[in-house]
């Protein structure tokens, strides 16, 4: 079972995609097939999470099969495996897809078959990114996941969808093409594309610097960090709700995951060297993203910019380079997927009913749409990191850890906690509270069972992770410790010691 788990996880959505595409079934049946496939994949994802041995270091459930020979870089393998960092991402991705499928009948009104095909194909691509343990395989999945979203935004998106989708693909391609160069150089230099081996290797520092720059550019665009972020609001605003959920929930996580796996872990020397700058970029993202979010009048744009701010936290945590911050960064990645995913679903709920996303078009929904208000408030609270919700645990760990290595940046990042409340509560004020200004908001269709089914698990997860994050943190602990061990020698060399900067006159312990 363990051997077959990952190939199965990957193969199921892939097979499901083609099954949907080629089956002669009617639309309803196709939806059911897709849902069955997605649920089975989600079940496997949960099974993976449960069966994952928290106390065991390194990759688990590994699978290997030869693929093709690359002259100078040995045998390219179909190598799969998960460690503490990727297991969370895999489970999150697998869980989000059925939720997206659940709400899709609300806004996918044409060409359902194609939509289901692309969605499942995208799931395979995303899972592949997190599972791949071979550079080439990773890259292939990385790009594969792009095309489905290109079509999903381009076909089922809003008014300006074509501009948005081309911008999204081209922008992210700039990064991945540069990454390809770095990838080839590394593979040729080490004569292998085996990630597990490369993660043990000490590469030449000059090569590390080059490769890190290549890889990081790609990831930073994907995350995205300021100033590479402007594709995101456009893509989000134009994407159908399901696409936004996947984009925020998983796609962006590919960037943060990449930063950890192929940034820090593979090129530790370069990572240590660049870490302060990247942490600065993260903090800039937090503050800048929050400010811009505050000024938005479009609900979806606001949530999109809030993503920029949240992912700033993740970047800050990733490059604080200590266990606490790293664990926080990984967890916050999951959190962002859940809470921002929920927020995008909620935006979609309104859009399906009113066909507008202008904040000013709403107001007083707490009175006319109380169930919606309840869910939106919970998602907002998770998003602003109220203790007891998942956001708090992640932000606390990130800021606490970052404070150790980069105290001033942590303090500045902490401002995000205040600014987050400013714009998120501002949004709630405009949408939920105040008098009902538009009569159409008095007769909104109540939440459909499918919408409940999609949102309730997300809200439950927010609270569960907020109150009992131990199962997640335990699973990431060893992996994050391994990451820190990987960078530690270079930190000593760089003089950026792991110990906190002590106030004057105090002896290090």
């Amino acid at each position: 079972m363990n051997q077959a788990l990952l190939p199965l996880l990957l193969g199921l959505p892939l097979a499901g995609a083609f099954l949907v595409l080629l089956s002669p079934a009617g639309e309803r049946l196709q939806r059911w097939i897709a849902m069955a496939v997605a649920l089975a994949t989600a079940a496997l994802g949960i099974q993976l999470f449960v069966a994952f041995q928290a106390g065991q270091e390194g990759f688990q459930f590994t699978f290997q099969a030869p693929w093709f020979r690359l002259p100078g870089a040995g045998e390219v393998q179909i190598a799969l495996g998960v460690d503490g960092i990727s297991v969370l991402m895999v489970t999150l991705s697998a869980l989000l897809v059925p939720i997206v499928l659940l709400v899709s009948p609300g806004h996918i009104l044409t060409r359902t078959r194609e939509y289901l095909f692309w969605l499942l194909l995208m799931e395979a691509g995303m899972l592949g990114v997190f599972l791949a343990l071979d550079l080439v395989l990773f890259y292939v999945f990385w790009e594969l996941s792009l095309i489905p979203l290109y079509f999903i935004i381009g076909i089922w998106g809003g008014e300006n969808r074509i501009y948005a989708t081309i911008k999204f693909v081209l922008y992210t391609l700039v990064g991945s093409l540069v990454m390809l160069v770095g990838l080839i150089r590394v593979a040729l230099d080490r004569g292998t594309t085996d990630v597990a081996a490369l993660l043990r290797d000490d590469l030449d520092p000059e090569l590390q610097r080059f490769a890190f720059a290549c890889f990081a550019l790609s990831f930073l665009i994907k995350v995205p960090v300021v100033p590479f972020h402007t594709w995101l609001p456009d893509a989000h605003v134009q994407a159908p709700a399901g696409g936004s959920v996947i984009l925020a929930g998983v796609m962006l996580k590919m960037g943060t995951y990449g930063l950890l796996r192929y940034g820090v872990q593979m090129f530790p020397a370069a990572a240590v060297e660049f870490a302060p700058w990247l942490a600065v970029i993260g903090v800039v993202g937090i503050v800048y993203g929050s400010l811009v979010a505050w000024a938005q009048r479009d609900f979806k744009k606001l949530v999109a910019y809030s993503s920029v701010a949240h992912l700033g936290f993740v970047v800050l945590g990733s490059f604080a380079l200590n266990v606490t911050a790293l664990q926080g960064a990984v967890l916050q990645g999951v959190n962002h997927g859940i809470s921002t995913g929920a927020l995008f679903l909620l935006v979609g709920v309104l859009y399906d009913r009113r066909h507008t996303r202008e904040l000013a078009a709403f107001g007083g929904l707490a009175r006319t749409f109380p169930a919606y208000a309840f869910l939106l408030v919970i998602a907002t609270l998770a998003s602003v990191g109220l203790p007891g919700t998942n956001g708090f645990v992640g932000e606390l760990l990130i800021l606490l850890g970052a404070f150790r290595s980069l105290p001033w940046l942590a303090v500045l990042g902490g401002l995000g906690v205040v600014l987050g409340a400013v714009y998120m509560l501002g949004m709630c004020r405009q949408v939920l509270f105040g008098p009902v200004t538009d009569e159409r908001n008095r007769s909104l269709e109540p939440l459909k069972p499918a919408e409940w089914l999609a949102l309730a698990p997300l809200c439950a997860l927010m609270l569960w992770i907020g109150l009992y994050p131990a199962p997640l943190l335990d699973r990431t602990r060893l992996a994050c410790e391994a990451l820190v061990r990987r960078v530690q020698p270079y930190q000593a060399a760089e003089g950026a010691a792991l110990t906190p900067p002590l106030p004057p006159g105090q002896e290090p312990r």
Partner: protein
Amino acid sequence: MDAPWLWLIPLLPFAGALLNGLLHARVLRARAAAGAGHPAHGAGHGGHGGHGDAAPHPLERWAGILGTLLVAGAFLVAVRAFFSLRGLEVHERVLRAPLETWIRSAELDVGWSLVVDPLSCTLVLVITGVGALIHLYSTGYMHGDRGYAKYFAYLNLFVGMMLMLVLSDSLVGLFLGWEGVGLCSYLLIGFWYEDGAKSDAARKAFIVNRIGDFGFLIGMFLLFWWNTGAPSLNLAQINQAAADGQFAPGVLTLACLCLFLGCCGKSAQIPLHVWLPDAMAGPTPVSALIHAATMVTSGIYLVARLSPAFAHAPGVLHVIALVGAATALFSASIALAQRDIKKVLAYSTVSQLGYMFLGLGVGAFGAAVYHLVTHAFFKALLFLGAGSVIHALAGEQDMLRMGGLRKYVPVTYRSMLLGACALAGIPLFSGFFSKDEILFSAATGPYGAGNWLLWLLGSAGALLTAVYTGRLLGLSFFGPERFDRQRVHPHESPRSMTIPLVVLAFLSLAGGVLGNLFLHPLEEWLHPVVGGATVVARGEHHAAHALEVGLLLFAAAVAAGGTYYGWRRFRTGVEAHERQLEQPGLLRTLADAWHVDALYDALVVAPLKRLAAGAAAFDTHVIDGAVNLAGAAGRAAGGAVRRIQSGFAAHYALWFSLGAAILLLGLWLGARA
């Protein structure tokens, strides 16, 4: 001693919150089913003590009963905890309910454990006791509101969160409660959300609190990492580490200042006091419970809880004392000129919290907590009384539109009179003793000449307190009746509302006389927790008995005189007063709260908003502009290159020949070299 049953204390209200929430959902469903025919139902709330526009659902009355009983149950468990503590040796008075796992990561290990010691036990008794009374009051006050069950869900949630705040054994757990009560405050201030102003007030409260919380977080980080021993966020361990000198003095000062910023936010001290007066937008019982008796005192609790750390942090207590004294005087002055009865009480609360911080700042931790308790009684009483008055006048909150009410609402009047005496500091009432103790501690504090400055500020504040208290009584209960008798028929409130008034009135009285003359127990009771810190902060000293008596007499005179003056001055001649309030002048400035809000708006909020708008514009035009420019440049280059493709074979041959010429020339030269 392990006492897992301590979990009942917060869990009972939490269960209430859950059940009431479900009840509310049920009611909403029933209402939706019934009102499906006419969705455009009702315009919204008038904004006062909530008399809704929907017929109460038969299930709803259970919400009040459930909420009240569960909080009362928590109170009973707290009483049991009290007696368990009493049964222990003085220095072993700690009960624990350990529960290890919450957040674990590297050095960080935070559990859910609860701890009850004399300090938290005191707070728990106040929270659940006063809380239960206010729940009871609310069953009457909120009767008929369309969000009746929701209200009790929030209120129960609040009590649970507040209990988590005082019971947690770690800073993180405390922070959970800290932000949790902030959330409930947000929800309850904006309870009548259809009034946009109320929603804005709620948001303001949350955000100002968040600014404080930012300080809290930074302080927490400092205490965690810059501890030269084993890092920990356990409150007892932090105190121990501070006492053992494991923090560099500068670090401890910085950390405590950061934490104090958090306290300023939660307890509405200068400069973060601006949210509390606006918080009066919530239903009046909420003001009583949250914005007078419990939540706003959590800053006091935090400093008292970490008193060993604060005492060891040089300079921090100076700051606290000064901020406290300044706030006390500053907001007392504002309370003088408010027309809204709840606003008077709100600024009064800010002022009284200032006294508590003054007490903490001069190292009189016990006295501060004592004032916290007495204040909880009498301020809750005053708010509930004010609520009763508002109820009687069908929503009128402007004291200039009241007058002569004492014959209409006798029970309210009498109990409020007792509460007012306590607030003003009339001898024998609880407020007199607790405030006097703080002022006395200030006068004999550790700051040399600074003591007298603090005392002077405090005493001046006390005088103003007495005056505005007298004014409040005079304006609302005496003099001519200024309300519209055609429209309003004042009447005494129902039993469910007056019983809590009477109980609290008794406590306001008893908290003074009994507590001080006969028992004087609280200081002793708290001694194991804060005694050590008091000694560190104040040193061992014995003030002259004569001085104590002298100050006591002076304070009594100030209180009595001030109250009398206020009552005399404002019983009549209200029209002149109203003109003063409206024309520019000192009173007008006071009425506008020294224009602090406008100042913040101009200096902080507006620039930040401009910054945000600027950032958004920058984002669209510069960053995204650059991206679009790159695309446009590519297309333009494509257009230029396309022109070569003219369609004429001759042109093609020309380009062909040109290329061939260059290539061949290159080869020829290359081969010759």
